[in-house]
């Protein structure tokens, strides 16, 4: 086992060990638990970063393999997975710091942090899975590991939302299972990402289309493509770090990542092109982008508004993936990175407001900017990034998507992207403005340690939103590697 192999495995295992450790600690030892959670996340993230340092140049290589029922559990490292892994594991560190502050007064911290760490490992598993079976396995596990986080509060709403989440996810997963079985028969048992496209070449296009849509529906649930998005807004009853991390970064991006894998690793660009399903997909994404924004306009509960915004923004990534052009793929990858970093800040800020003032609705937020200037300031600046204004990172991904859609002669997408930017502005700007201009009878409170724990990660990630805006090139090596992986340029 080389160093890389060990690291891939260790980054997953370490969070699991951390989770078990956390579960074993008795309820009172808060500080110890917090240290373990943050520490495990940090170590795991560091490992993934070290993988970046090691592995990118040498391309894809298999890391770890165990057989299961004539299937194999296969972990590999490729640029696409590494991008997702870095994104998730890094943000996990911040989210765990934030959680320490946010869950300060929670009574079920042990349960929360255990599953929080377990999900981290599973997300990395998704990122590094080397064949469809492994992917499916971690994908399915992710549902179960995150379910306790969704229903954490145990209220009726939360349980109902959890029920919805698990229904949607399991149905989606069963579509994926069916697709995998079908793929198995079509390829004669080849499930490795690296060798599927070649093995699929003999299948008829009708079969391939069915296969494609099976995958699309399956992954579309977690990626919240429009008719399949129902679980996401309801899942917002979860504690904010969970909403932030899972429903802006890990879970939804797992769906998106699945779609990317389907399009680029399972089918390959040429095959998807030959299926001529692109118009349908692009229309689907455009509709999701516009409708998601329009619905977001109407939401009064802040987190629900953010959820619909997420739905709309995820469709950007999928749009970029479906255009099947190097530039658009670069845009999609950039948007995956940037949207995650931006949206997590928005969620964090919403969480801080909810914790400090108890306000959950946009209509109540008036004046909160006065007592939480840094929080709402970050919210405001980052929401500009979501709109796609310079000099914030959100611009660059949209810019690449526009270029990609133009290069692929899909003019109308430009309009969609621009219109959606405007709609984003319409639903984000009033929040910040009313926070800073509105009046309220709130009294500034003393800064608690918990607030500090929440504020620091928020501000740091927000700063990344600006830094990436000014130096988008920082992310380019990764994105270039992904593009080079799937397009022979």
């Amino acid at each position, binding site marked *: 086992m080389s160093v890389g192999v060990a690291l891939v495995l260790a980054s997953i295992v370490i969070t699991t060990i951390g989770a078990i450790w956390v579960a074993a600690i008795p309820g009172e030892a808060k500080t110890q638990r917090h240290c373990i959670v943050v520490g495990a996340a940090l170590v795991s993230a560091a490992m993934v970063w070290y993988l970046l340092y090691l592995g990118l140049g040498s391309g894809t290589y298999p890391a770890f393999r165990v057989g299961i*029922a004539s299937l194999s559990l296969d972990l590999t490292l490729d640029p696409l997975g590494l991008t997702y892994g870095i994104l998730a594991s890094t943000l996990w560190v911040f989210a765990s710091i934030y959680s320490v502050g946010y869950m300060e007064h929670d009574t079920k911290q042990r349960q929360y942090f255990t599953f929080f760490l377990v999900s981290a490992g599973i997300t990395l598993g998704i990122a590094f899975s080397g064949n469809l079976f492994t992917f499916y396995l971690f994908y399915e596990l992710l549902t179960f590991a995150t379910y306790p986080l969704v229903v954490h509060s145990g209220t009726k709403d939360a349980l109902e939302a959890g029920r919805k989440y698990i229904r949607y996810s399991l149905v989606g997963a*069963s579509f994926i299972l069916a697709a995998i079985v079908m793929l198995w028969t079509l390829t004669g048992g080849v499930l490795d990402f690296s060798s599927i496209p070649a093995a699929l070449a003999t299948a008829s296009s009708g079969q391939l289309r069915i296969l494609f849509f099976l995958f699309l529906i399956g992954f579309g649930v977690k990626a919240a493509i429009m008719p399949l998005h129902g679980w996401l807004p309801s899942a917002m009853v979860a504690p904010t770090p969970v909403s932030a991390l899972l429903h802006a970064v890990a879970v939804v991006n797992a769906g998106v990542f699945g779609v990317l894998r389907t399009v680029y690793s399972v089918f390959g660009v040429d095959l998807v092109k030959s299926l001529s399903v692109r118009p349908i997909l692009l229309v689907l994404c455009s509709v999701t982008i516009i409708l998601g924004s329009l619905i977001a306009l109407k939401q009064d509960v802040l987190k629900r508004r953010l959820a619909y915004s997420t739905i709309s923004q995820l469709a950007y990534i999928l749009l970029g993936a479906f255009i099947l052009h190097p530039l658009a793929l670069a845009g999609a990858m950039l948007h995956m990175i940037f949207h995650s970093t931006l949206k997590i800040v928005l969620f964090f800020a919403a969480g801080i407001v909810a914790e400090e003032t108890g306000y959950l609705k946009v209509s109540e937020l008036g004046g909160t900017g006065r007592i939480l200037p840094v929080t709402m300031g970050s919210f405001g600046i980052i929401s500009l990034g979501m709109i796609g204004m310079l000099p914030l990172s959100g611009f660059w991904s949209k810019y690449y998507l526009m270029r990609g859609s133009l290069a692929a002669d899909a003019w109308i997408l430009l309009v969609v992207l621009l219109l959606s930017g405007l709609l984003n502005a319409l639903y984000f700007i009033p929040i910040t403005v009313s926070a800073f201009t509105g009046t309220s009878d709130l009294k500034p409170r003393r800064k608690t340690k918990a607030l500090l724990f929440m504020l620091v990660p928020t501000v740091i990630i927000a700063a990344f939103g600006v830094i990436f805006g000014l130096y988008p090139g920082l992310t380019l090596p990764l994105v270039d590697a992904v593009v080079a992986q799937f397009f022979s340029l």
Partner: protein
Amino acid sequence: MALAFRDNLAVLVVVALLSTAYIMPLLTKIRRFRVAEYFAVAMLGLALSGGIYLAREILLHGTFTYAVGGWPAPWGIELSLDAVSGFFLITIGVVATPIMLYASVDLIKEVGSRSRAAWFLTLFLLLVAALCGLAVTGDLFNIYVMVEVATIASCAIVAARNDATSVEATFKYLMLATIGSGFVLLGIGFLFVLTGNLNMNFIAQELSMSWQKYPTALWVCLSFFMVGFGVKSALFPLHVWLPDAHSTAIAPSSAMLSSLAIKGYIIALLKVFYVAVGAKIITRLPITDILTLLGMVAIIAGALFALAQDELKRRLAFSTISQVGYIFLGIGLGNIHGLTGTFMHILSHATTKALLFLAAGAMIKHTGKSRISEMAGVGAAMPVTVGAFAVGSLSMIGIPLFSGFVSKWQLLLGSLANGNYLAVLVLVGGSLLAAAYLLPVLRMAFFERPLQKPVVANVSYVQLAALLFLVVVIISVGVVPDGVLQLASEAATALLGLEVLP
């Protein structure tokens, strides 16, 4: 010497268990009760290790036979040890040992009195012995005898609790099972009339030459077998006795019946269909289609019925009906993947359902709540038990890394190999329904806020050890199924009469 030991081991396992069974009441009279229980556990453990040894031998040296009493077939009873036997012996050992371990903790309290508990041990061991007998036998009439022993033992086990509902359920079970036995015996009679033999290998030889002369008689005979074993193994719609019987019995009984007793009859059915009649004939008759169809209906119907139950053990009982559907589906598919899936599901369902019933028993006993809607907060009171239940649920749903997935995957491949897309749909849908009826339990137990503070329950460490043993089995079969899977596919190959898979 090793060979002789191996040859005798097959019969030794059965005989040892039988004789131990009858020693039990005596043992409880003269020694402390615990000693008897541990002795029973030890015997089961020995049976397990014997099974593993036999399976290893079979894998290494191929099948072998043992003529009981030195009378060669066709006159004497012949034990025929092939991969099927090995596989089922291991299954029995793996499941029965922890169940016995679990039962040993508070058996007297559960069944009422010391003497009843002693007889319970007897019956339990008898049942296991009969199942082992079913596994190793190569003789049709021996099958009948073992089936009857198993039936009577399991009926009596159901009645162990000695209250009205369980006695009533037992009576119903006994009546229906006896009708089933009647049909089985009739079927055996028909086969005897047709071939003049009771040894399955000889029957197979006879039939392969002459079956086309009287296909109708063969069909009627197979129908008898199907109905007879169908009743006993709760194939939908012949399952009617099962929910009552399995839900009223005490937890170890339920676990034993749902996980192993039913499987014994299925093994018998497999032997009759695939060994006595032979794969070539069976697959040409429409009986496999009917089995597939019934299996599919059972998967869906059982799950739907389970969904409607509020009582936890009843829900699990109906879940058994649904899972038996999977097994029959695999039998009906009649190809290598399907039969491998059947065997894997026999193992995975046995371990999983035993785990579920045992965990459910602990939950019900320590909280006094038998309904799912009352179970809020149980998870906090007994996390390890409910955690084990969660593992069982996930395995039952068919999540990868748990044994349930391995079997379902094989069944999926089998269905696709037959081009049966409807079966794929049903398999996936059955998994979803399994999620629908099992996950709410976990939701209630772990995440629903309890109305009042639940009782703090301390499950004994022995019982927890039993549960954890099953958990370990489920997960290790799920993660590293290679060895078991090889054995299962050997068994399937043996039944299909194919060359061994590479």
